[in-house]
């Protein structure tokens, strides 16, 4: 885990002091809401449907037990006893008081946390693979690079007022667990002839104009990576549209320029930027990398596990993944209990997860973009003990990547931008498919729900996606099929006319029934969709 140095801590502490004064001036009437709004947003404080909402950054989704306990403490002390883990690997609190916000940020700063760059037209919190440092298939740990990007982008004077928000993901495996190509910049670390470098994709994103990022650079060596990214940002900052918020993202610029022309301009800029010497010296990269060294694994750790408890065995098969180290495993804790609110966890549950990480997972946790939690370094011999405690804390749902492991934005229950509620739809779908055997028979099926076109619930990237819209003051739900945020990235297509809340649940059941009827051996839902196309599903839905 990265540990703040004196500069990091000074930056965060200074920001708390600054925001405390800004809040004081707002409450005293010295500044208006129009003046205050951009300041609070720079500190992650939104005004939502019912109250202020604070979005706390979890850099590249990595945190330790002490930080996790602080998140529980914030939930218990300043909110209403729970938090909501988001598709940006962050956490949001829905019931924050403005007058408490400076104290919350001060408490977060004591554990090296903040809410900087969780809003505004800047480079947002860097996202990454939740299995980083533990995955058997990675070529390098992406987190030192994500941390370098965090340091580079924090208060970068040139990129603090971009045309629009900017999201970067870093992965280091062929399996994409971070929806990398649906980011403004996607970085895939790889090795060529023994040299570490990266493939660069630019111009992806969801929202009202979903696009898959085209490849802009086949291979840039790690030594040149930061300069190349600086060049990518500079071209965008110079030519990205500022006159129309709906056309301001880099995906629109690249779509209009064409990938070839954008690439040409980046290469031209890169030639200039490289002279500036912004790539870090090897010693600095080594300093950062050393903080992400693997924990001391026991080479003699047992890799046998007693599967005699059938419920435990199901959870093992569904929620536990292979670790790079023999005798260890990666545990996925589902925050998707059937009938629950996707991504929500109570303060007590957050504390339980912190305790489990401290005792069993080298003190580390990860937040996933699918709104779940990961214990990355667990001895196989400890899995049963962990599962027992997860069962007790109602955190043992064995549904990872199944139809009830639904990504859902807060929707109209909380969000001032939403047009329709997402959470009740997620709950009804999960209840309809509550039978675990039925879910497992359906296999991997990623269902994602957004309550508006901004697509925080990643509906474009769902094998099945749902988009809530406002139709003359009534909630209506469009259904999409065939999306994916993984290495087989694709954008879902709308099936046809929308449905009401119950209608969309029925429609999904007709879709899954069709899948069962026409699938071939070994095909996931999305494989079958790609083979047979939309028509059989449309016929089943609209008949």
């Amino acid at each position, binding site marked *: 885990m990265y540990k703040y140095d004196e500069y990091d801590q000074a930056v965060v502490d200074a920001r708390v002091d600054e925001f405390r004064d800004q809040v004081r001036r*707002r409450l005293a009437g010295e500044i208006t809401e129009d003046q205050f709004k951009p300041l609070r947003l720079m500190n992650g404080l939104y005004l939502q*449907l019912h109250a202020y909402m604070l979005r706390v950054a979890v850099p590249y989704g990595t945190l330790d037990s002490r930080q996790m306990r602080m998140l529980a403490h914030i939930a218990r002390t300043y909110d209403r006893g729970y938090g909501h883990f988001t598709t940006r690997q962050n956490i949001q609190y829905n019931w924050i008081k403005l007058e408490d916000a400076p104290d919350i940020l001060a408490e977060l700063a004591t554990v090296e946390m903040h809410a900087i760059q969780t809003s505004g037209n800047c480079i947002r919190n860097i996202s990454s693979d939740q299995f980083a440092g533990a995955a058997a298939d990675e070529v390098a740990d992406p987190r030192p690079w994500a941390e370098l990007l965090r340091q580079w982008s924090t208060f970068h004077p040139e990129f603090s007022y971009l045309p629009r928000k900017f999201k970067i993901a870093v992965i280091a495996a062929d399996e994409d667990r971070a929806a990398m190509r649906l980011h403004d910049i996607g970085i895939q670390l790889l090795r060529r002839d023994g040299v570490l470098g990266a493939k660069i994709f630019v111009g992806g994103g969801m929202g009202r104009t979903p696009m898959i990022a085209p490849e802009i650079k086949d291979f840039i060596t790690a030594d040149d990576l930061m300069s190349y990214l600086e060049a990518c940002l500079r071209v965008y900052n110079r030519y990205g549209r500022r006159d129309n918020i709906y056309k301001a993202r880099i995906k629109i610029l690249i779509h209009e320029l064409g990938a070839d022309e954008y690439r040409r301009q980046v290469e031209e800029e890169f030639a200039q930027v490289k002279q500036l010497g912004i790539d870090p010296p090897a010693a600095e990269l080594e300093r950062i990398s050393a903080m992400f060294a693997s924990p001391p694994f026991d080479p003699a750790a047992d890799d046998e596990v007693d599967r005699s408890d059938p419920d435990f065995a199901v959870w093992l098969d569904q929620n536990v993944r292979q670790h790079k180290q023999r005798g260890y495993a990666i545990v996925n804790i589902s925050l998707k209990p059937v009938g629950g609110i996707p991504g929500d966890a109570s303060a007590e549950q957050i504390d339980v997860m912190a305790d489990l990480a401290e005792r069993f997972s080298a003190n580390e946790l990860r937040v996933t973009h699918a709104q779940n939690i990961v214990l990355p370094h667990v001895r196989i011999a400890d899995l049963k003990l962990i599962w027992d405690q997860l069962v007790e804390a109602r955190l043992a749902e064995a549904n990872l990547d199944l139809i009830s492991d639904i990504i859902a934005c807060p929707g109209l229950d909380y969000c001032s931008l939403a047009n329709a509620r997402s959470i009740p739809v997620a709950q009804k779908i999960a209840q309809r498919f509550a039978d675990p055997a039925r879910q497992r028979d359906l296999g991997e099926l990623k269902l994602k729900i957004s309550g508006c076109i901004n697509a925080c619930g990643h509906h474009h990237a769902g094998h099945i996606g749902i988009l809530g819209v406002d139709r003359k003051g009534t909630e209506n739900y469009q259904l999409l099929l065939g999306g994916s945020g993984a290495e087989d990235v694709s954008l879902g297509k709308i099936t046809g006319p929308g449905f009401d809340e119950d209608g969309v649940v029925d429609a999904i059941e007709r879709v899954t029934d069709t899948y069962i009827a026409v699938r071939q051996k070994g095909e996931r839902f999305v494989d079958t969709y790609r083979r047979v196309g939309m028509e059989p599903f449309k016929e089943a839905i609209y008949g």
Partner: protein
Amino acid sequence: MKLITGNDLATGDVVWWTGDDWSRHVEDAKDAGEQAEAIAREQEAARRVNVPYVIEATATAEGPRPAHIKDRIRALGPTVRPDLTLKPADPTAGSWVI
């Protein structure tokens, strides 16, 4: 009827204009009529409410009910957490929201 709603500056609570003050309960809201926009601006300037806006609503025997679902959800709380609404003890309290 026209209601004025906004958020309390310090706490963020949803509040409704009662004719001379602000209440957390939509049942206390009063029709602000043609003066609604002017009252909203005046109250915001006096820092008595944050980002107030005017909405359409219907008068009922139980009190005013906002016309749009978004404002009805604001009036009571999230539909998925009845324990966090303004009337957590009353299971029928939200029957008019959706």
